[in-house]
C-alpha cells in the first residue's frame, strides 16, 4: 500500500540564526532591580542580634550544624536561650500576621541539643591573637559572653567567679525543670575551648580592680543582681525568713530539702515564680503573694500560668505588711492593695491604708521582691569620664578601662540582654585597643542590626552579614502567595502531674522532622534562600547563575527593568530602584 510523499509546501517564515544578543534591551530600562538582602524584624528584636532568618533557612534545609554555628556567631548560648529566653523575636515575627509566629526558640534549642548530642565542635571565624588580656569579674551570662566574644576577636580572658561553678544566675537561679545544668555546662565548655580561663571559687573585690592593671589591660564587671532588696514589711528580718534566691541556689546545688504545709513566697518577678514552683516540687503548698494585679507581674505570662497549673496559689493584689513568728510558724498579715486602675501606686503606703487585711499562717517565708547589686563597686560610677552605651558602660580609670555590663546596667534583665551586654563590651574594647575611643560609636552603629540597638559580631568581623541592608522587612513586603497556612509547632511537655513532682525538664525534645517543618514556615524575611524565582520569572533570561555569594546576578545588558523578579521574590531580598544616570532622564529611546 502506498504512502503518499508530498513535496514540501511553500514555507517562508521569520527565522534567524543570528544571535539576538546584539539587541541590548537593557538600554530600555528606567528601573533597576538588584539583589538587596535586608534585615528581618526578628533579628532586630533579638537583643543578641541573631541572624534568625538565616538560621531558620539553614535549619529548614537540614543544615543543622551550619545553623547552630550561625547562632554561635552572635550568641554563645543557643541551648540556654532556646530554653529560657523570652523570645522577643517571636513577638515581632512577620509570620504572625499570616498565621502564627515561628517557634524560633524551639528550633534554637533543637540546634544546640543536636550539636551537643552529636558532640559537634563549631567552626567559628576568629581573628588573630592580640596581646591584650582582659579580666572578667563574674562568670554569669554577661561575663561569659564578654569573654567568648573577646576570645573570638583574639583576646585572652580570665574570668573570676566567686561560686564553685560558672554560670551565675543561669547556674544558681534557673531551676533544672527550665534549664538542665548539662545544657549550660556544654555551652560554657565551648567558651573554655576558645582558651578562656575560668577561675572558680575566686571572688574578686574592689582591691582586685585596683591591681588588675598589672595583669590585665581591661576589666569587664558583670556581677549581676545578687542581693534581695527587701519587702518593707515589718518583721521581714526575723530569723527564719529566707530569700527566694537562696532557695533557688540550694535547689540548684541539689539540696533544696523537703517542704510541707503552706509556704509563702513574696514577689511577682521571675525569681518569685521559680521559687514558688520549687516549693511545690519540694512538697510545700506554695502561696505566691504579690502586691499588684496578676497582669502586672514582671514574670512571663506563660511561666505564671504554668506555675498555677502546677499548684501555686497566686494571691495578687495583696501586700505583705507584717510577719510575726509564732510557735515555729509565721503569721503573715496581708493587706489588700487598692487596685487604682492597676497603676504603680497600688502598692504604696497610701494604697495599703484603705485595704482589707487577711492573716495567713505559713511554715516558711521566702522573700523574692527584687534584687540589686551586692556591692557598690559592681556598679558603674556616676559622672563624667564614662561612655554609656546601650548595654554597657565604659569607664576609664587609673587602673585602665573598665566595662560594666549585665543586669546591673541593663534596664531589661534577661539572658539575651546579658549576651548583648557582653558583645557590646567586647566590640567596644576591641575598638578601644585597635582604633581608639572615637571609633566606638560609629562602629557600633555600623554593626547594629537594622540600625537599632542589637549588635552583630559577624558585621563587626566584616562577614557577609555586614553587606545586608538595614531596612527592616515589613509583612506587606512579603509575597505571601508563596506560603501556605501551617500551624505553629506545639511544644511537647511533661504533663501537669509529672511537673509538680519532679525537677525534670518540662519542655521535651522535638524531632528533627518537627524542627525542620517549623523552620520551613519561616518567611526568611529579607534574605535569599535560592528559590530561583527571579531567574525563572525573568522574561528576558537576564538573571544568570554565577559563583557570587547569592549564586546569580542580573545581566543589565538585557534587563529591561520590568521588576517581575522583585515582585516574585517571596521574601523581599531584591529591590527595584529608579535608574539615576543622565541617559535615563528623557533620553531618546528606540
Amino acid at each position, binding site marked *: *500500500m502506498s*504512502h503518499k510523499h508530498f513535496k514540501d509546501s511553500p514555507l517562508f517564515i521569520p527565522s534567524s540564526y543570528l544571535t539576538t544578543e546584539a539587541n541590548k534591551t537593557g538600554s530600555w530600562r528606567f528601573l533597576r532591580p538588584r539583589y538587596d538582602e535586608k534585615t528581618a524584624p526578628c533579628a532586630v528584636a533579638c537583643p543578641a542580634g541573631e541572624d534568625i532568618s538565616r538560621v531558620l533557612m539553614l535549619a529548614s534545609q537540614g543544615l543543622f550544624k551550619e545553623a547552630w554555628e550561625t547562632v554561635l556567631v552572635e550568641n554563645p548560648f543557643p541551648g540556654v536561650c532556646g530554653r529560657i529566653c523570652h523570645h522577643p523575636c517571636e513577638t515581632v515575627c512577620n509570620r504572625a500576621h499570616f498565621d502564627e509566629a515561628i517557634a524560633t526558640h524551639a528550633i534554637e534549642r533543637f540546634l544546640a541539643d543536636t550539636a551537643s548530642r552529636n558532640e559537634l565542635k563549631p567552626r567559628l571565624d576568629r581573628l588573630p591573637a592580640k596581646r591584650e588580656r582582659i579580666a572578667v569579674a563574674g562568670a554569669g551570662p554577661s561575663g561569659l559572653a564578654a569573654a567568648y566574644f573577646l576570645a573570638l576577636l583574639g583576646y585572652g580572658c580570665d574570668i573570676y567567679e566567686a561560686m564553685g561553678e560558672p554560670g551565675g544566675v543561669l547556674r544558681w537561679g534557673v531551676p533544672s525543670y527550665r534549664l538542665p545544668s548539662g545544657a549550660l555546662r556544654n555551652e560554657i565548655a565551648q567558651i573554655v575551648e576558645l582558651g578562656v580561663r575560668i577561675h572558680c571559687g575566686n571572688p574578686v573585690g574592689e582591691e582586685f580592680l585596683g591591681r588588675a592593671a598589672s595583669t590585665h589591660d581591661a576589666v569587664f564587671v558583670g556581677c549581676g543582681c545578687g542581693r534581695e532588696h527587701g519587702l518593707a514589711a515589718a518583721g521581714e528580718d526575723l530569723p527564719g525568713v529566707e530569700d527566694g534566691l537562696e532557695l533557688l541556689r540550694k535547689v540548684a546545688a541539689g539540696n533544696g530539702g523537703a517542704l510541707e504545709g503552706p509556704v509563702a513566697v513574696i514577689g511577682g518577678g521571675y525569681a518569685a515564680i521559680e521559687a514558688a514552683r520549687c516549693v511545690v516540687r519540694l512538697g510545700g503548698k506554695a502561696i505566691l503573694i504579690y502586691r499588684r494585679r496578676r497582669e502586672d507581674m514582671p514574670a512571663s505570662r506563660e511561666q505564671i500560668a504554668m506555675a498555677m497549673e502546677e499548684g501555686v496559689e497566686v494571691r495578687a493584689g495583696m501586700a505583705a505588711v507584717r510577719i510575726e513568728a509564732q510557735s515555729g510558724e509565721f503569721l503573715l498579715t496581708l493587706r489588700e492593695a487598692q487596685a487604682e486602675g492597676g497603676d504603680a501606686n497600688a502598692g504604696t503606703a497610701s494604697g495599703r491604708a484603705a485595704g482589707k487585711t487577711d492573716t495567713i499562717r505559713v511554715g516558711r517565708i521566702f522573700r523574692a521582691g527584687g534584687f540589686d547589686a551586692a556591692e557598690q563597686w559592681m556598679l558603674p560610677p556616676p559622672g563624667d569620664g564614662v561612655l554609656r552605651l546601650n548595654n554597657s558602660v565604659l569607664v576609664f580609670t587609673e587602673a585602665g578601662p573598665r566595662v560594666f555590663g549585665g543586669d546591673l546596667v541593663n534596664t531589661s534583665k534577661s539572658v539575651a540582654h546579658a549576651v548583648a551586654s557582653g558583645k557590646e563590651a567586647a566590640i567596644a574594647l576591641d575598638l578601644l585597643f585597635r582604633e581608639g575611643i572615637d571609633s566606638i560609636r560609629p562602629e557600633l552603629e555600623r554593626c547594629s542590626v537594622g540600625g537599632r540597638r542589637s549588635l552583630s559580631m559577624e558585621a563587626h568581623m566584616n562577614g557577609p552579614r555586614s553587606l545586608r541592608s538595614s531596612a527592616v522587612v515589613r509583612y506587606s513586603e512579603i509575597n505571601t502567595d508563596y506560603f501556605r497556612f501551617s500551624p505553629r509547632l506545639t511544644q511537647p511537655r511533661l504533663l501537669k502531674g509529672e511537673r509538680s513532682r519532679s525537677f525534670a525538664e518540662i519542655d521535651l525534645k522535638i524531632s528533627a522532622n518537627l524542627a525542620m517543618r517549623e523552620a520551613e514556615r519561616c518567611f526568611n524575611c529579607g534574605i535569599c534562600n535560592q528559590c530561583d524565582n527571579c531567574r525563572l520569572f525573568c522574561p528576558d533570561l537576564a538573571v544568570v547563575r554565577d559563583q557570587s555569594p547569592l549564586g546569580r546576578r542580573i545581566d543589565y545588558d538585557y534587563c529591561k527593568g520590568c521588576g517581575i523578579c522583585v515582585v516574585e521574590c517571596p521574601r523581599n531580598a531584591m529591590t527595584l530602584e529608579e535608574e539615576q544616570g543622565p541617559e535615563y532622564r528623557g533620553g531618546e529611546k528606540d
Partner: protein
Amino acid sequence: MKKVLEGSHAVAEAVRLAGVQVVSAYPITPQTHIVERIADFCAEGAMNARFLRVESEHSALAALIGASSMGVRTFTATSSQGLALMHELLHWASGARLPIVMADVNRALAPGWNIWDDQTDSLSQRDTGWIQLYCETGQECLDTTLLAFRLAESVNLPVMVLLDAFLLSHTYEPVDIPDQESVDAFLPPLRPRIALSTSAPRALSQMAPPNVYMEMRHSIQKAMDETAARLEELDAEFMERFGRRYGAVEAVCCADADIVLVTSGTITGTARQVVEDLRAAGQKVGLLKIKLFRPFPTTQVREVLEPVPKVAVIDRNFSFGATGIFAQELRAALYGLSRRPEVFGFVAGLGGRDVTEKVVREIYLHARDNAAPDSEAIWVGLSEVSNGA
C-alpha cells in the same frame, strides 16, 4: 475494532492512535470529554504524551505553539468562548506554520449563555489561516482527526476538526477504531520542518519588516492552495487503508437535481434522509455536504453546482450584517460562473435549536416554490418576540 463511542471519545481515540506528544487544553463544555479521555490515556500509559494543564485556552494554544516549534506532534481541544479566547494565537499558529491539530466542538457564543450547537464560533475564525474540516458522524470525527495530522504536517498549517455540540460530541454511535499498526502506516512519526534545537540555535517568529511580511502571507496562501488537492490524495490513501472516504465535499443525487441542499455537520445526516424520502416521492433533489470549509473548495463546489438551477444552503451560523456564512462563501465561489444557480440562504438551528426533517423539508419546499429568494438570509422557524418594544 468496533465500539460504541461518543464523538468526543472518537476524537480522543484518534489522538491516542496518532501518537500525539504534547496535549494542552482547558476544560469547557461540551469539549471536556475529549481531553478528559486523553488525560486518562496519559495517566494509564496508553499515551506517552505530556499533558500540560494551563490556566486558559489562550495559554493552552500558546503552550502548544511552543511545543510544536520544537517539532513534536501536538493537540488541543476547545469550544465557543475558549476558541474565541484563543483568537490571537490562532493567527500565531498559522503564521508560524505550525501543524497543530485542534478539535473544536461547535457551540454557541454568549450571551445569552448557551452551550448548544452553533457553528459561529469556528466560522468567525475563518480568516485565521487554519484549515477547517466539519464532521457529520462519530466515525468521521475519528477519521478526520487522523487525517488532520497528516494534512497539517503535509502543508505546515494548523487544522481545526469541527464537531457539533452534543449532536456529535455526546452522541454514542458505533465507531470502528483502527489498529495501531494501520494508523502508524498511514501516519508515521512527525518529520518536522520546523524544530528548534539547542544544537542549532535559531530564533523563530521574530520581526518581519514590510519587505518580507507580504511574502510570508503569500506563502501561507500558496500552502492553502495546495491543501484541497492534498486532502483528496490523503482521502484516497485513507480509503485504500481503512475503506472509508469523505472528500472535501460530498455530492448526493446532484447530477439531475433541480434543487441541491447544501449542508455541513450533523444537519447533513438529517438532510440525507429528507433527500431519500423526497426522491422516493419523485422530487429531483440533491445534497451537497461541505466538509472542507477552509480552504474553501471552490473548484469542487462549482463542479457540482454549476448545472443546478437552485441551491438551498442551510447555515447553523450567522455573520451579522451579512448572511449565513456558508451561503456567503458559496455565493462568492459561484460568482465567477457565467451560468449560476439561484442561491437561497437559510439560517436554522442557531444555539442548538433542532433542525428536524420537517425543517429541512420546509426549506426545500420554500426553495422549490419560489423563483428567487426574497432576501439574502431566510431565518427559519422564528417565533414572534417583543424585541424590546
